[in-house]
């Protein structure tokens, strides 16, 4: 603590939680500063633009501060905050999915070549994910990164398990195609781009 400001890195997780539970703005800011960058990545994965991601981040952190008194500390604080961010993002996506419902994809061309992620920066991956169609993007995030299975995803999004699977297969094929394209670019020009 210096000049009245609370620096998050100087505090333990428990101290941060206790301070936030008392509603002290300094502790809330410290907690925000500790996790906002990681959570921004989570929000960006579920959105198409920075502004949209920031809206989700803002809404998510307000929920975090309001719900912190109920946090039972059975998981790590970061995991709990991530779950809140994902749920907030899903709420925001659900409205869009209501307008553009997900359907089963009949035919998917999966590239035969296996792709490697080595040498690919996360920001490039982020761009690729953001460029996926709406439904694919959400299912891809939930399955590949958050680790949900298709049954859980179906329950979360109110779709059938088959739809979840087909959407994921489509997302994966699109990602692989993008990654292959990127890999061939590296083979040709090296990693200088990154």
């Amino acid at each position, binding site marked *: 603590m210096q000049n009245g400001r609370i620096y998050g890195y100087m505090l333990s997780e428990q101290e941060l939680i206790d301070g936030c539970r008392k509603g002290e703005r300094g502790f809330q800011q410290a907690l925000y500063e500790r996790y906002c960058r990681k959570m921004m*990545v989570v929000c960006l994965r579920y959105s198409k633009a920075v502004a949209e991601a920031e809206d989700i981040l803002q809404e998510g952190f307000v929920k975090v501060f309001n719900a912190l008194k109920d946090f039972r500390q059975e998981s790590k604080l970061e995991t709990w905050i991530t779950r809140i961010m994902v749920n907030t993002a899903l709420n925001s996506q659900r409205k869009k999915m209501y307008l553009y419902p997900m359907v089963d994809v009949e035919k998917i061309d999966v590239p035969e070549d296996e792709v490697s992620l080595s040498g690919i920066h996360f920001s490039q991956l982020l761009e690729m994910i953001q460029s996926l169609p709406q439904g694919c993007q959400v299912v891809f995030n939930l399955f590949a990164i958050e680790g949900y299975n298709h049954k859980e995803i179906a329950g979360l999004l109110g779709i059938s398990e088959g739809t979840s699977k087909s959407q994921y297969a489509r997302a994966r094929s699109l990602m692989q195609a993008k990654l292959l394209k990127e890999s061939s670019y590296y083979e040709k020009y090296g990693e200088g781009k990154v």
Partner: protein
Amino acid sequence: MKNMEREKFEESLKNAFDKAEISPSDKVWMNIELDLEKAKGGHLKRRLMFYQMLAAASVVFAMAIGGVGFYNIFNQDQRSADNAAVNTPATSDGLTSASDKTTQGNDLAIQEERNSTSRTEGTASPAITPDNTASGNEVQGISGQGNSLPRDHSQTPGKNSDASNFSDNPQKDGLESFADTKPGDRFTELPRAIDDRALSPLYSPKEIKVIIQPQKQEEPVVDPVLQMLARLEQREREVQDEKENKKKGKNQNENLWTSVGFAAGSFNTVQSVASSPAPATLYSNMSLAAPIVDQETKASGYTYSMGVNVGTKISERWVFQGGVNYLTHASEYTANNVVAATNNFQQQRFRAVSTNDLMHSDEADLNNKIVYSAPYNVNNSMRYLSIPMQAGYLLVNKTFGLQLNAGVATDLFLQNTIKADSDQLDKTSQPGGADSPYRSVNLSGLLGTEVSYRFGHHYRVSLNPGIRYPFNTIYKSELGVQSTPLTFDVGLRFRYIFH
């Protein structure tokens, strides 16, 4: 193999984002802070609402205490005034008593003048000649005890108009103006002066007035200048009040309204006693009619009313409303005997037995006329003209309103109609009066709430659930049966607000 490759892909994807960080813009935190402040504000608002309700409850409590206190003081005042009137040789020396004063044409003006001058002391017209020292001394002389009165008057030499207003009668005037002062005036040492005289602590200044009046020597003379000043001040206050009312805005300006409405509900007879052991009653004499009468008095049923009400606001939170309602109580019971009668054309007719028959026939006559029959339903419809008077406390007085009402209703019995559920039996009606078994006038207690919604500048619609309970039985005492129906009804009222 392929599945393993897939898992590897997802694992590497997960790892790629594991340590990933991107800074959001500064405005995100600012917005979060704003949202948190808003949420905090909402919480504060709720707390504020709670404290407002608490304050309202405190005011009610304080007013109740104040009311009891005022009642006590007023009662004591009355008693002491009566005592003084008895103990004092009324007008033996030409002095005016309190009652005498009322008969004199200009006394009211004098009183008003005195009140106003005590409020505007020191600002009176220069035309009034101050003579306060004389009055102060004289007062001391009259009371025969050194109290704070002369000191008070001598504090404002040359300017004190209280004494000088009635300089022709300094003894009385000095004391009366002292007695007329209100709490907060500069004569706040009065209680101590009263204590010095070893009077009851509940003695008010008015008591002093009664005691000293016999010592008055002459009739007070009304000073026209002071009278004019008093009127001017009163007008000034009225103008001030009008301005304040205007400031309160249109929403607050609900001082007078009228409403039309209707209500429907049900009633249960919570207390119904047939005094069969008492031989003197009509009920106990009519052995054959008794079971039917018993059923009639115990019957529950439906009630509906419609009427017009007028209400006015008597203070910021208190309202008073009254009106006229047409009230109907309809109950049903089963009878198994009928009364046989002949009409003018000597035809045999039958009608249902009811309490009305107890008033018309003697025992032998009625028992001879009663004939047993198959059970049938009888509907008894009682009609009243009800005049409710209620005081209400406004818990919430905004677009949505919430009000608690309590009061009494004078119910004037109009008539009852006995109608059997059979075409063979005649319908009979009995208006109120000597021949009716029902009391002509009943007094009922009312308790209810009023939830309302205001729309437009002139209208408010309200829902009024409430209960009504008569203070005594609705039947005449000579009948020997008691019945006090507890009514619960819900009313709907449309209110027109006058501006």
